[in-house]
């Protein structure tokens, strides 16, 4: 299932939309700044996090990111977070009074964890669903990641789905001959070994292909990134709103408006 989703995300990244056309550097910066703002909240922040949903929501809607896909990715990321966070209500029993009843402060921090999780995972998925991986690597190159790393990211991406396809074939082959169980370690080791040898051979073939075309050293891509006014606008909007929402909790402001 996650292979299918990864493939869906990848294909979606090559679609066209307002969001897709934004400069990848702007999107990368915006996403990182967003995540940092979200996690910079103290542990009990719950309502204060709500306004932050505006960012993934806007990006997803204008980027045509399928909602079901987004939720499946959220579900995928949840188990560890939930497992760790679930202890909070039991470990932190500081009483918090809400007019008529009392709850453990741990419930607040647990909810905060869930909200952070949703916001951070969503923004990452949306980033890669609206920015093709090669373009994202271009953005990273701009921010000076070592070029050996950029080349590695590119080659990994190029052969990722090829290898995943092979793994699927292995799984299917085993499934068809075994009924419905999973392989033992010995069998898995054997299948992996043969896949590994084929993979190493493939690596050699690629190297031969590179040599045959006169490979000299670096692998550069041609796509130019052109920063436009809309990219500045987008980035500023995200930065300013993130700071505002972080410093001035919207729920308080609205509440005081309602009161008066």
């Amino acid at each position, binding site marked *: 299932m996650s292979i299918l989703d990864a493939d869906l995300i990848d294909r979606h990244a090559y679609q066209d939309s307002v969001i897709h056309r934004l400069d990848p550097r702007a999107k990368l910066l915006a996403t990182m700044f967003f995540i940092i703002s979200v996690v910079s909240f103290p542990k009990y*922040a719950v309502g204060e996090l709500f306004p932050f949903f505006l960012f993934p929501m806007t990006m997803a809607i204008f980027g045509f990111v399928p909602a079901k896909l987004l939720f499946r990715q959220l579900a995928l990321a949840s188990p560890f977070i939930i497992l760790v966070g679930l202890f909070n209500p039991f470990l932190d029993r500081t009483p*918090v009074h809400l007019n008529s009843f009392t709850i453990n402060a741990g419930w607040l921090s647990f909810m905060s964890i869930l909200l952070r999780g949703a916001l951070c995972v969503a923004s990452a998925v949306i980033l890669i669903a609206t920015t093709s991986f090669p373009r994202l690597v271009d953005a990273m190159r701009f921010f000076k990641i070592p070029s050996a790393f950029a080349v590695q990211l590119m080659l990994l991406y190029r052969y990722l789905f090829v290898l995943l396809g092979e793994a699927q074939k292995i799984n299917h082959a085993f499934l068809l001959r075994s009924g419905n169980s999973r392989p033992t370690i010995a069998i898995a080791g054997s299948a992996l070994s043969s896949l590994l040898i084929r993979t190493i051979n493939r690596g050699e073939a690629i190297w031969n292909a590179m040599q045959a075309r006169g490979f000299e050293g670096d692998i550069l891509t041609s796509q130019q990134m052109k920063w436009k006014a809309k990219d500045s606008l987008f980035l500023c909007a995200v930065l300013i709103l993130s700071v505002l929402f972080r410093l001035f909790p919207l729920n308080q402001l609205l509440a005081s408006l309602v009161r008066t």
Partner: protein
Amino acid sequence: MHMADALLSPAVGGTFYVLSGGSLALSAKKFRDQGDQSRVPLMGVLGAFVFAAQMINFSIPGTGSSGHLAGGMLLAMLLGPWAGFITLASVLVVQALFFADGGLLALGCNIWNMGFYGCIIGWLIYRAIAGKNPTRTRISISAMVGPLIALELGAFTVVLQTLASGISELPFDKFSGLMLGIHFPIAIVEGLVTMAVVNFVYQLKPELVKQSLGLSESGKEGTADYKPVLIVLLVLALLTGGALSWFASAYPDGLEWSVSKTYGKEELPGQETGIYGFLSKIQKKTAFLPDYGFKPSEPESQAEAGSSEESWPAISTGTSVSGIIGSILVLGLLVISGIVMFRLRGGKKK
């Protein structure tokens, strides 16, 4: 286990970004320096192989649960420390983006936990055991020992990172006991699979497995004897894995036991010293962001159940009725803007 953004604080995330970033830059430089570009495509496809390997879930005998290869030690043994580290780091980037495994901020932590321990320390172990004489036995032993140490170190660091971030409430001893305990069988399985696979490669392409050992800095690296370090690390790993697992299970009412503790960092053992103290200092320094009154609880307030207004002004502000109403209003606004945006967007473009 991958660290998640939700449990992380900017300070801890940032710190490990620096550590991992530095390691990556160093690895890239070392890789470039030794000049052999022929491994570039191999690194790419081996990175993809790690994903493929993770898709092949096998059942762990006796537990009924499934496991898969993490791959750090394998990469180290086939590629050497620098190329291996670069490859594993790239795998983690793709995992974070395409598979929602680990977050973007947590990437720094994960690259350190899995890349540094898995590939660099892992390779050191490989070299220590098999460096002078890579026989099949020694290769097998390395394949077993490497993941054991690397995974336990990684698991322990996750605990430290979580603690230093202060978002989760899990207390140090129970959490470490759990993490170290869980990763012990995982490491054994990883070791077995790595051993099987590397041995297979050794039969067909021995140069590959031996070549990764031949890499050292331009002759400057001494022929230091790593054995004592190794033995100590191994003993530590076994002790922590075994003993703390026992500890965790010896406390059936462990959760009750931790109720009496407050969540404040001030109460946790060993927090003033070492890496943990360093991190919490950074944490405090960067907590200058005006958080409109939120303060970590004072230990005494635990008992003041009734006088919450004074000792918990921040919490009560955030959770008072008006705060809740405000939050609901925000949600309402979000829904409305969502609908408006849908209308604005129109149909799907191609």
